[in-house]
């Protein structure tokens, strides 16, 4: 299948250093060195997934971009991915091309969101992803390189280059990489993949046009009613214009929720109820772009439109009573795709 010719422009260099100089100089990296995308490495990536180079992974309609497997593979190699990570990268790119994700606007806006790549299911463990201690930080090869690959496709192929098409006011550290896995060992809730309608044996990837994560410390009790109020307070900080909120519960917090017997739906409803304010307060805090959106200024307005827009899951290390709150940019909806792995 991959005997088909690769059609990308070739570059020739005398050595590794020249490769780095060229790719850095041509603005084809995130500022860090890359793995040289040689034909052998790109072919290994395609071979693992059984994809022909001209297979369209996704079509982005605003900029009319047909993103091919070959180009995704080149960027994945550059990011340092191993071939077994490639199914996650291609599923994430396909998800980014769904119209509701609004890739174009989220890649250009001053808001500066990044693509959070969230993996749920056994495949995350098979490829060695970190879902535990320090999962949002450095050192895990799969987490680091999968998230980086998605960002490189966005910049190199799609053209969302900082200070050119990407006009982020502040940028986002996650524009280097922002990828982690759900911790399936913590808690009794169904996995994210199952929540999104896939069967228990499936793995799935969710992409989120994500703001920076906000870590909340929830001290002083094991009663969900007390510590979840603090989480709702943090959600209010996101304002009333996010599309969804992802709430990451540490295993210890998850344990307290389980011991209290709270379902996902109960937690969603509790957080939604508590993270509401009268419209006039949001307006007074200058968190509303169009105040006339709320004719009744006493109307209670939620951080998100309804409880189903709060996604809950466990992740992180065993120790620590922390919850991480990640807002999804208001003009984008997260998208979940099954990870297709060739058997």
């Amino acid at each position, binding site marked *: 299948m991959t005997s088909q010719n*690769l*059609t*990308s*422009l*070739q*570059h*020739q*260099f*005398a*050595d*590794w250093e*020249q*490769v780095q100089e060229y790719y850095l100089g041509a603005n*084809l990296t995130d500022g860090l060195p890359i793995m*040289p*995308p*040689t*034909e*052998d490495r*790109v072919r290994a990536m395609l071979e693992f997934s059984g994809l022909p180079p001209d297979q369209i992974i996704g079509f982005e309609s*605003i900029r*009319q*971009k*047909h993103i091919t497997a*070959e*180009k995704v593979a*080149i*960027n994945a190699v*550059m990011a340092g991915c191993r071939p077994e990570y490639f199914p996650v990268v291609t599923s994430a790119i396909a998800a980014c091309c769904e119209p509701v994700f*609004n890739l174009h*606007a989220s890649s250009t*806006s001053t808001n500066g969101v990044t693509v959070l790549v969230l993996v749920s299911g056994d495949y995350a463990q098979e490829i060695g992803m970190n879902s535990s201690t320090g999962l949002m930080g450095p050192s895990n090869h799969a987490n680091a390189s999968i998230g980086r690959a998605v960002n*490189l*496709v966005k910049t*190199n*192929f*799609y*053209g969302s280059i900082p200070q050119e098409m990407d006009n982020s006011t502040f940028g986002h550290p996650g524009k280097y990489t922002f990828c982690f896995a759900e911790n399936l060992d913590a808690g009794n809730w169904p996995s994210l993949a199952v929540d999104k309608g896939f069967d228990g044996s499936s793995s799935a990837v969710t992409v989120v046009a994500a703001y920076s994560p906000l870590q909340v410390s929830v001290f002083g009790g094991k009663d969900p009613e007390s510590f979840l109020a603090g989480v709702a307070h943090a959600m209010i900080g996101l304002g009333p214009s996010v599309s969804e909120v992802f709430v990451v519960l540490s295993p210890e917090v998850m344990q307290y929720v389980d011991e209290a017997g709270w379902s996902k739906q109960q937690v969603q409803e509790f957080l939604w109820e508590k993270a509401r304010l009268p419209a006039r307060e949001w307006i007074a805090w200058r968190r509303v*772009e*169009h105040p006339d959106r709320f004719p009744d200024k006493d109307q209670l307005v939620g951080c998100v439109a309804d409880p189903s827009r709060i996604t809950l899951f466990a992740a992180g290390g065993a120790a620590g009573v922390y919850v991480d709150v990640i807002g999804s940019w208001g*003009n984008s909806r997260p998208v979940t795709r099954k990870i297709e792995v060739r058997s």
Partner: protein
Amino acid sequence: MTNLENKLVTLDPRDESDHGPALLAPRPHTLDGKTLGLLSNNKPHSEELLQMIATNIRERYGIKGTVEYNKGSHQWPANSEALKEFAAKCDVAIHATAE
């Protein structure tokens, strides 16, 4: 690594497809007698800005009239049917953003 005549050969990660150059619509020689379209992206004050521009143009040309359309969001594409309807009603259009 791939070696070709002792060279390290790598592939280019950019989009190499050729969509052809983006072309500007033909420009009219004058705005006299033309219907001016005012296309807002719903940013705060964008409609006010468009009205100021329209006032300025009215003072300089004998335009036939104006047609207004607010596409609802600066972050989402305009509804294609509504945009076609708007385009059919005007000879020229100005699209403005503001804060």
